[in-house]
């Protein structure tokens, strides 16, 4: 049910944006940011349930929680980066959109660094020195 609701909100918002775009492009762009925010807030609600399910799963099988947290963080950073770069691309600011993506990749690397180091240590242990 919620799916149909959010789709109809998006369609109405798209029509409003087209309407406002002729008269006032800047406010139309702000309206598209607002629509994007509503969609992402809706997605977050559903995503929260998925993450809670994952967390219960890990506690039952006592999987190492370190990696799960890192995965959540990486998804979060990717989520925001995608949101921002698509918005900038929508406003024809492709150069800045690319910059935002580079920043996002950098932060994902920063978050995933400890895992990278752990993998490297395991690999080095295999090499017969």
């Amino acid at each position, binding site marked *: 049910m919620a799916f149909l609701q959010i789709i109809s*909100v998006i369609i*109405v*918002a798209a029509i409003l944006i087209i309407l406002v775009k002729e008269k*006032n492009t800047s*406010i139309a762009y702000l309206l598209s940011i*607002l629509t994007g925010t*509503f969609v992402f807030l809706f997605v977050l609600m559903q995503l929260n349930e998925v993450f809670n399910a994952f967390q219960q799963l890990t506690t039952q099988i006592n999987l190492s929680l370190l990696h799960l947290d890192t995965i959540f963080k990486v*998804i*979060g950073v990717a989520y925001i980066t995608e949101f921002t770069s698509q918005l900038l691309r929508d406003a024809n600011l492709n150069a800045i959109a690319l910059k935002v993506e580079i920043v996002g990749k950098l932060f994902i690397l920063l*978050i995933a660094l400890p895992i990278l180091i752990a993998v490297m240590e395991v690999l080095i242990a295999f090499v017969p020195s």
Partner: protein
Amino acid sequence: MSDIYLLFQVAGIGIVVAMIHTILKQMGKEDMAQWATLLGFILVLVIVIEYVSKLFQEIRSVFLLQMLM
């Protein structure tokens, strides 16, 4: 459901501001028209920024991104 009303409000503000702009321009008050448009834009900007910050707060809580930002 309340978010659709906000979308309508923002669209309404955009259209009203554009109309005020053209009316003032016909009346000959060119600078007043610019000010009215700027004011409308700032009003919408405040609304949008409030929602974007709410979104980012939500993202931080869902994705446990406390220490990064």
